[in-house]
């Protein structure tokens, strides 16, 4: 039996499916549920990723069922809604996604999708009631629906793309850096002569999805990418390669070598690309050294986020940057079988370390763990801001939900992402120093207050 959760950050299956459909160009979700389900998604997911809204508001089609449909069934309402959606909303693919109420009522969704297809519209469906799981299950259900139901899957009209590889397991919006991370992973794979099918974000539409069976390899970046990769292996015999977590910094080189070896690519080309990238990152790291020593970067840290983020970022912070992982909290509920491997992986980054790894999505529990761990630096979501303030240590928001930053195509993956992460982390440490030293001295000398007063005056005069 699922336990209650304080401050849940994993939303529901319907919302996970919406994140998938909205991240595909030309994808139009058609929500069959009561009016609020789409607005909940907009408030609770899109808005907490500042800058992640494709339609300019909540989803553009929703049947908004009322009491009548709960009592007598809502299939006819869905038929009407679907018929009008294809007339009004521009799109290449219409995806019916369901909420709890219509699933409890038992509306016949497959039949409605088939009616749409019989009229020559591209319509597929996914049953995604919130009582069936969180965003991660929603991602898997929607991706499964795409692979199983896309009418033109595998029937690419153009010649097959050479060296195509699919990327699975990065969930749009649940990873706030999804767009930038996918772009960077694409860039790295291109660097060794491959073509990444990143499937979500700018320029990624139905044609890209139709090419999924043509790939040489399915690369799995998080445990949530396993199911689609296994489904494709079963259907098309495409091999699977798992990278353990988001590749940040040096980890990128390790995985590029692994992929290169598996696909028997030109080793010289791979090595030359990795060398070039590492050299550039090393130059930046060397430039940072003075600030690193002066501001005391080498701290014990707490990191709260999704499994692939925690693995990738801890690996970089500890393995490259010399920070000390203290409390690592994984919030995405990975399946039991994956947990032991995660713990082994994370506690093994530095030998003999006293890193503690936890699995929780309950805010009260997470807060207690961070507090008792006593880190000198907290990296997490907006929900960890209070406990970081309580500990009086620098804090950086990097996992969902975000409240104090805008993310458009920023990335924490790869070599470029590693440098970006360093910029953000370093800024958090320096601004903490600034706030404690400089602002306090201003307030003490009265300078800060008079500055504030001048600002307030200029606001009134600006009108």
């Amino acid at each position, binding site marked *: *039996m*699922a*336990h*209650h959760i*304080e*401050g*849940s950050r994993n*939303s*529901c*299956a319907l*919302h996970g499916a919406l994140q998938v459909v909205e991240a595909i160009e030309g994808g*139009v979700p058609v*929500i069959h549920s*009561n*009016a*609020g*389900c*789409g*607005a*909940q998604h*907009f*408030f*609770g*997911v899109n808005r*907490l990723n500042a800058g992640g*809204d494709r*339609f*300019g*508001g*909540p*989803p*553009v*089609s929703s*049947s*908004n069922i*009322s*009491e009548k449909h709960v009592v007598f069934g809502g299939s006819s309402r869905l038929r*009407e*809604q679907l018929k*009008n959606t294809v007339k*009004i*909303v*521009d*799109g290449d693919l219409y995806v019916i996604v369901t909420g*709890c*109420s219509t699933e*409890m*009522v038992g509306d016949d969704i497959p039949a409605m999708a088939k009616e749409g297809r019989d009229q020559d519209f591209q319509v597929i469906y996914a049953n995604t*009631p*919130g*009582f*069936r799981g*969180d965003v991660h299950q929603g991602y898997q259900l929607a991706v499964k629906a795409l692979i199983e139901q896309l009418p033109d899957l595998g029937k690419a009209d153009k010649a097959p793309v050479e060296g195509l590889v699919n990327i699975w397991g990065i969930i749009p919006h649940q990873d706030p850096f999804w767009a930038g991370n996918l772009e960077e992973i694409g860039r790295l794979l291109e660097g060794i002569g491959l073509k990444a099918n990143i499937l979500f974000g700018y320029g990624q539409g139905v044609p890209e999805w139709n090419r999924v069976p043509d790939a040489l390899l399915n690369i799995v970046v998080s445990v949530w990418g396993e199911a689609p990769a296994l489904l494709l292996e079963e259907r098309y015999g495409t091999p699977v390669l798992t990278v353990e977590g988001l590749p940040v910094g040096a980890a990128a080189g390790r995985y590029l070598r692994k992929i290169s070896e598996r696909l028997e690519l030109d080793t010289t080309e791979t090595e030359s690309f990795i060398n070039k990238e590492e050299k550039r990152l090393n130059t930046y790291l060397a430039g940072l050294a003075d600030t690193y020593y002066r501001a005391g970067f080498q701290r014990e840290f707490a990191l709260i986020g999704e499994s692939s983020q925690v693995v990738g970022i801890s690996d970089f912070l500890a393995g490259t940057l010399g920070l000390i992982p203290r409390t690592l909290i994984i919030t995405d509920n990975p399946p039991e079988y994956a947990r032991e491997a995660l713990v082994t992986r994370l506690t093994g980054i530095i030998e003999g370390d006293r890193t503690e790894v936890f699995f929780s999505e309950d805010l*009260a529990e997470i807060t207690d763990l961070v507090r008792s761990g006593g880190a000198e630096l907290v990296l997490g979501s*907006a*929900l960890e801001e209070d406990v970081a303030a309580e500990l009086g240590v620098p804090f950086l928001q990097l996992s969902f*939900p975000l*409240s104090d930053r805008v993310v458009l195509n920023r990335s924490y993956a790869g070599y470029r992402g590693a440098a970006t992460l360093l910029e953000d982390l370093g800024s958090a440490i320096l601004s903490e120093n600034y706030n404690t030293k400089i602002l306090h001295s201003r307030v003490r000398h009265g300078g800060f207050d008079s500055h504030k007063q001048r600002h307030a005056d200029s606001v009134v*005069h600006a*009108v």
Partner: protein
Amino acid sequence: MSLLKTKASRTREKRLDTLNAWQGNVSSAVTEFSDGEPVKRIRTFSQSTQDDLLYALRLLAGISDSVAVIHAPRGCAAAALFHQVTSGSGRWIVTNLDDRDTIMGADLKLRKAVKEVYQRYKPNVVFIVSSPVVAINNDDIQSVVEELHEELELDIVPIYVTGFASHHAVTGYDTTLHALLKYLGGKRGQLRSNQRVNLLAVAEHPDDRREAERLLNALGLELNILPDGALPETFRKAASARHSLSLDQDTENYLGITLRDEYGVPYAEVSRPIGIGGTGRWLEEAGNALGLEESVQVLHKQESERANSALKNFSLKGVRVYLGLASATAFSVLGFVEEFGGEVIGLTVSRLDQLHKERLEKLSELHPALQIHVADGQPFEETNIIKRLSPDLYIGDSIHLGQIGRLGIPVVSLEDVPVLGYNGAISLARRFSAALHNRSFGEVLARTPLPYKDSWFRRSPNWHIKKEVK
């Protein structure tokens, strides 16, 4: 019969004949509400919009020293996460109903959640928020409320929202206010009357609440502000106050009339204090009701001089404005636009009902042909209308302003800015000036297409609004 005997308030459509799908001019809107009950319309195509559960979560996030237990599958709490991380208020847990719970019911789970949350935080009050799944299954919340109330000696307030029983999200405010008074208001006659005045503020911007408080304090009034920022005991005090003052009849109406009819606290609905003249009229009403006519005159003179001097270079002369706002706000902002010489050429309001009849009649005398569109979050209709009118400025408070912006016109959002009182007028003027002064962002947004087909914009905007066949 006492209003508060029932489990929940009546829906807005039953109580006030509320419409949320309608288009026409002001004079036909007056006719609609004059000839008996208006004919209900529905949409054959609709877009996501808010529901009563979302409104309940918004209101409850503002109540201090409380925890909300959202009795639902996990996604129904998404908006609570938004309120928590963006306004830093509102502790909540979700019971996380799963497949099995939808079949077997989840009373035990609810009981456990309430107990644990009480042990951990010892709040003054726990809210239990219902949801579509719980409403469909007809899960028994009431016995959990009654048993745990005794066992824990704790106020537990059940909020019976459903997500589908009403077409109007605002019903969620009514349902929540009904429950708050029913469980926290105390019994009539057992309360000693006090000299405080209730200021009714539902989901107002904190600066707006402070502005109203500042003005009323300047008149020497001691206030009881609710439900925003209220403590559980505020509701008991409110039930014995000497008067209730209104900030927004749309949202707080149920609270005002229940305090009046159930506890005998006088309440008069006035339009929102928006704009300098509008704020003056609002203060005047308050002064008349409380015998403070002279102090009000002095205060208005002093404050309006200050505001006018801050606004001396501000004018909307020659500016054609479209409004897409909650109804009461729309009518008051219309007054503000006209006060500064602008022209409102059309408006989309979230709903129309018996509460707006008087405002519509007055408006009809001045602008009988002005077009009104009634919709809660249906941007496909709104963009179709605005494309035809091409206004110079759009003022809105909905969650789809990102779409309006793609029409290339300057947009000002009132969702999260102070609008009330003299300071609100200054803040509004700043926003309007900036939007009109530099339009480059709108021009860039216009290069991203709207999500609709071109053929839709050749259809009439009300194509999908039909009279309901019962």
